[in-house]
C-alpha cells in the first residue's frame, strides 16, 4: 500500500517510530499534491518549500527525542480562505489573486505548532459561495471519483484533495454546508464544529455569524485528532467560546448502545431514491449497533433555506465591501475617479455568484426592506434554534442525508442559481442554529458516486458525533476511499 493511502494517524505513527522521516513523507505528498492539482484542480498553491522546511524541523525534533503531538509530520492543506502568513490566500477570487497576508490564522498557527506540515492551499468556490466549486477564479474542481462530476462546495478543493490522496487531511470552512457537502460528494469525513469552538481569526469572512472552520479527513478518528489541535479558546475572536474542550480522541469509543437518534422526515423531501436507500441502510446499521432510531418532524426546516440565504448574503454584502481596490488585491487599471475605481474594481474583481449575493444582501439590509427580510430571517433563526433545542431534549443525534442527490455533473446547475441553492436544504440549519454536524460516508448511489450521512448534535457535542461516526466506521468500509 502506498503511503498516501494511509490515514493521518497511521502516517503519524510511522513518522514517530522513525519508520519513515517526515521529510520523505513531505516530499512524497508534495508530488501527490502537484498531481492532484493537475488532475482535479483541487489545489491553488502547492507550498513545497514551506513543507520541506517544516518537515525537516519535525525530523530534527524527533531525532532529539522531543515528544511531538499525535499528528506531527503529517502533510495537510488549508482552504484558500484561511490566512497563511506570506503565502497566497486568494479565496478563489480574482479580487485577492495576489494577496499574501502578513499574519497566520489561529488554526494555521496551531497546526504549525503541532508539527503538521503545510503542503498547499486548496481551491474553493469564490469567497466560499457555492455548492459545486465551479465559481473559483482559479478554475473549477473535479470530483476525484468521476471527473465529470462536481466535488461539492464550497470546500471542494479540500474534500477532493483528501479523496484523491493528495493530503492526509485538510481544513475547510462551513457556512451553510461547505465542509459536509463536499465531504459527502467526495466520500470523505468532514465535521463542522459548534459555532465558537474554533477561532475564526484569519478565516476570511463570508457570513460571520455562520462561518466555522473544521477538518476534512479520511475518517472520524483523524477528524478527532485535528479537532484536538484546532479547537481552543482564542482571545482574538470575540465569538470564540472560553470553555473547556473535551479530548476528542478519548471520546472515540466503539459503543453507541442506547444512543437516541432522531430522523426528521422533512430532510428526505425531494431526496433521490439512491440517497434514501443508503441513508436508511446506515440507520439500520446504527440500530443494529444498539442505537434507538425514531422518526420526528421538524417543520421549521421549510423556512431554513430562505433565512439562510438572507442572513448569509446580508453579512457577506458587508464583509466583502472592503474589497474596493484601495488597500490590497485587485484594482482596476483604468478609472476616472474614486467611484469609478470602486465600480470597475468590484465589477472586474468579483465573479457572478459573489455579485449576486452582494446584491441580494444589500437589498435585504436596505432601509424599508430590513424588517421584511433581515429581521424576519433572524426571527426564523430563533425558531430553528428552539426546534433543535426541543429535539435535543429527547435525542442525542439527528440523522439525515447531507444532500438530496449524489454529486451532480459539472455545469448541470450553473445556469439556475435557485436550483443550486435549494440543494443546501439539509445542511444550512446546523449553521443557523450554531450546532455541530458531520458528514460520514455511508454508501454509493447512481454511477457509484459516494453518499454521506449527516449527523447533527446539540452544541458542544462534537464528541458524540465523532464517537458515532467512529463506531460506524469500525463496521463499514464506505470511508476507505479510492
Amino acid at each position, binding site marked *: 500500500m502506498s503511503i498516501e493511502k494511509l490515514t493521518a494517524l497511521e502516517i503519524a505513527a510511522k513518522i514517530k517510530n522513525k519508520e519513515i522521516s517526515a521529510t520523505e513523507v513531505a516530499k512524497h505528498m508534495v508530488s501527490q499534491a502537484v498531481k492532484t492539482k493537475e488532475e482535479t484542480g483541487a489545489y491553488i498553491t502547492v507550498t513545497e518549500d514551506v513543507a520541506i522546511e517544516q518537515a525537516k524541523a519535525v525530523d530534527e525534533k524527533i531525532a532529539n527525542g522531543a515528544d511531538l503531538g499525535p499528528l506531527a509530520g503529517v502533510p495537510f492543506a488549508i482552504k484558500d*480562505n*484561511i*490566512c497563511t502568513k506570506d503565502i497566497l*490566500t486568494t*479565496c478563489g477570487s480574482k479580487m*485577492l489573486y495576489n*494577496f499574501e*497576508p*502578513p*499574519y497566520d*490564522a489561529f488554526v494555521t498557527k496551531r497546526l504549525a505548532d503541532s508539527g503538521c506540515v503545510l503542503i498547499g492551499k486548496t481551491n474553493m468556490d469564490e469567497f466560499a459561495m457555492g455548492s459545486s466549486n465551479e465559481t473559483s477564479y482559479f478554475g473549477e474542481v473535479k470530483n476525484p471519483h468521476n471527473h465529470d462530476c462536481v466535488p461539492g462546495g464550497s470546500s471542494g478543493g479540500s474534500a477532493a484533495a483528501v479523496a484523491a490522496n493528495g493530503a492526509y487531511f485538510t481544513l475547510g470552512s462551513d457556512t451553510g454546508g461547505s465542509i459536509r457537502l463536499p465531504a459527502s460528494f467526495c466520500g470523505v469525513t468532514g465535521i463542522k464544529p459548534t459555532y465558537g469552538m474554533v477561532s*475564526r*481569526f*484569519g*478565516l*476570511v*469572512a463570508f*457570513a*460571520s*455569524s455562520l462561518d466555522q472552520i473544521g477538518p476534512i479527513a479520511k475518517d472520524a478518528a483523524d477528524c478527532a485528532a485535528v479537532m484536538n489541535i484546532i479547537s481552543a479558546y482564542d*482571545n*482574538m*475572536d*470575540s*465569538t470564540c467560546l472560553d470553555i473547556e474542550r473535551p479530548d476528542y480522541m478519548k471520546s472515540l469509543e466503539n459503543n453507541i448502545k442506547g444512543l437516541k437518534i432522531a430522523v426528521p422526515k422533512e430532510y428526505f423531501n425531494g431526496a433521490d431514491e439512491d440517497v434514501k436507500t443508503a441513508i436508511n441502510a446506515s440507520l439500520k446499521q446504527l440500530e443494529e449497533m444498539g442505537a434507538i432510531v425514531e422518526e420526528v418532524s421538524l417543520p421549521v426546516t421549510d423556512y431554513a433555506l430562505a433565512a439562510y440565504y438572507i442572513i448569509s448574503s*446580508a*453579512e457577506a*454584502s*458587508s464583509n466583502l*465591501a*472592503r474589497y*474596493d481596490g*484601495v*488597500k*490590497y488585491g485587485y484594482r482596476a487599471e483604468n478609472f476616472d475617479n*474614486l467611484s469609478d475605481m*470602486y465600480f470597475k474594481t468590484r465589477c472586474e474583481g468579483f465573479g457572478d455568484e459573489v455579485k449576486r449575493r452582494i446584491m441580494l444582501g*444589500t437589498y435585504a*439590509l*436596505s*432601509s424599508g426592506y*430590513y424588517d421584511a427580510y*433581515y429581521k424576519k430571517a433572524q426571527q426564523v433563526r430563533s425558531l430553528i434554534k428552539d426546534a433543535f433545542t426541543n429535539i435535543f431534549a429527547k435525542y442525542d443525534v439527528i440523522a439525515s442525508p447531507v444532500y438530496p442527490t449524489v454529486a451532480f455533473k459539472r455545469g448541470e446547475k450553473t445556469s439556475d442559481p435557485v436550483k443550486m441553492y435549494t440543494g443546501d436544504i439539509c445542511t444550512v440549519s446546523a449553521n443557523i442554529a450554531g450546532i455541530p454536524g458531520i458528514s460520514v460516508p455511508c454508501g454509493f448511489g447512481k454511477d457509484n458516486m459516494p453518499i454521506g450521512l449527516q449527523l447533527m448534535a446539540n452544541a458542544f457535542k462534537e464528541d458524540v458525533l465523532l464517537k458515532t461516526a467512529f463506531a460506524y466506521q469500525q463496521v463499514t468500509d464506505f470511508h476507505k476511499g479510492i
Partner: protein
Amino acid sequence: MNYEAVIGIEVHAELSTDTKIYCSCANKFGGEINTHCCPVCTGMPGTLPVLNGKVVDYAIKAGLAMNCDINKNSKQDRKNYFYPDLPKAYQISQFDLPLCKDGYIDITVDGEKKRIGVTRIHIEEDAGKLMHDVTPDSSLIDYNRCGVPLIEIVSEPDMRSAKEAEEYLNTLKAILQYINVSDCKMQEGSLRCDVNVSVRPVGQKEYGVRSEMKNVSTFSGVLRGIDYEINRHIEILEAGGVVEQETRRWDDGKGISVSLRSKEDAHDYRYFPEPDLMPIIIADEKIEKLKNELPELPHIKRDRYMEQYGLPEYDATQLTTLKATADFFELVIAAGASPKAASNWIMGDIWRIMNEKYMLIEDLPFSAKQLADMIALIDSGTISNTAAKQVIENMFETAKDPAVIIEDLGLKQVNDESEILSIIDTVIEQNPKSIEDFKGGKGNVAGFLIGQVMRMSKGKANPQTVNKLINEKLAKL
C-alpha cells in the same frame, strides 16, 4: 416676523484610552504615517475586532456624568458606506441600543439655568485620514487614527441660540475633562461637532426644516456656523422660500456654509448588528463602581463655590472649568487662605504670569501651601499687597517660600509707629509748602504726604499706619 432658532449638536469625542477600540495599537495622536496601525484596525481580510473594555467604562462614565440611563443590554452595529479612509467599508458603531440614553446637561446663560437633554451616547471607531496634497494626481491615506475610540454625544434640539450652544459645549467639554475620559483637544481633532439648525416663527410648536453642518472642528466655527445658518434660514423664509433639508459643510476660512448633499442623496447605511462582537452586558455593580469613581462635576462644584465660599458666579465658573484649577484652589483654601483672596490671586497675577509663560496650573513651580502662606503674610500685615505682587513674581522664578523671598528682597512691611513717625517728620520738613497749603485749607495734602512717605520707605511702610499717623499729625497743626 420674529424667529426662534432650534439647535441640536452631535459631539464626537475621542476617548483617551491607552489602546484603540478593537485592537492593541497605541491610541496616540500623530506619529509617523501608518505606524499606529495593524491588520485589525486596517480591516485586513480574516481579522476580527475585540472590544476594549476601557472604552465601555469611559463611555458609561460620560453617561453617568451627563445623567444618562445606562443600557445594561447593549450591542454594536455596522454602519456601511464606502470611503477610502474606512478600510472595512463599514464603521462599527451603535444603532438602536446605545450604551447611554436619556440624560441631560445643565447650563447657565446670563444667570439663567437651562437643562439641555442628552438623547444618547454611543461608542464607535474613528476613521483614517485622507491626504490630498502629497502627490499631484492621487490621494494618500494615513490609517493611524483608524480605530481610535469615539463617543458620540447627541443632544436634544433644546438650544435656542449660539450662546446656549457655546455654554453647552463648554460644559460638556469641562465634564469630559473632569472625568478624564477625553483630553478634548480640538486642535488635534479629538472633539468634533455636527450641528443641526432650524428656525421657526416664535410661538410655533412644529420645528422648521433643519440643515446639518458636518464635522465642524472648532467651537468658534460651531458658533459662527450657527449664526450663519440661522440668518440663512431666516433670509430664505423671509423671501418666501423653503429651507431644504440637507447636509452642509462649514468653511471656516470663508465664514460660510456650503451644501454637501441633499436629503435625496442621503446615505442608506444599512445598519445591522455586528456579528463579530458579542452583546455588551453591563452588571449593576459595574455601574455602581463607575459612579463612585466620578469626581464632583464642574457645574456642581461651581454652585458649591458660590454657596459655600460666597464667590461671585464669574469666579466660580472660571475656577471650576478645569479640574486642575479647582483642585489647586481647594488646596490653597485647605492651607488656610480665605476663598476670596485665593480666588483673586489665582485669577489675577497667577493666571497673568501663567499666560505669559504658556504654563498650565499643573506646572506651577510653587505649591498651594506656599501661596496660602503668602496670603497669610498679607493678612498679618507682614507684607503689603504691592510687595506681594513682587513675591509672586519671585515665586515663579525661584519657587522659594514667600517668607524667604521677603527676607531676601527686604520686602517686610514697617509697622513700627516710631519708625514711621520719623519718616513722616522728614517728609514734613522737606515739604513746608504743603503744610502751608494745608493750613490755607487747600487740596488733598494728606494724600500727597502719604505718597511721599510710602516712596521714602520704598513701599514697605504699612499704608494704614502711615494714613493714621499723617492724619493725626495734620490734626494737631
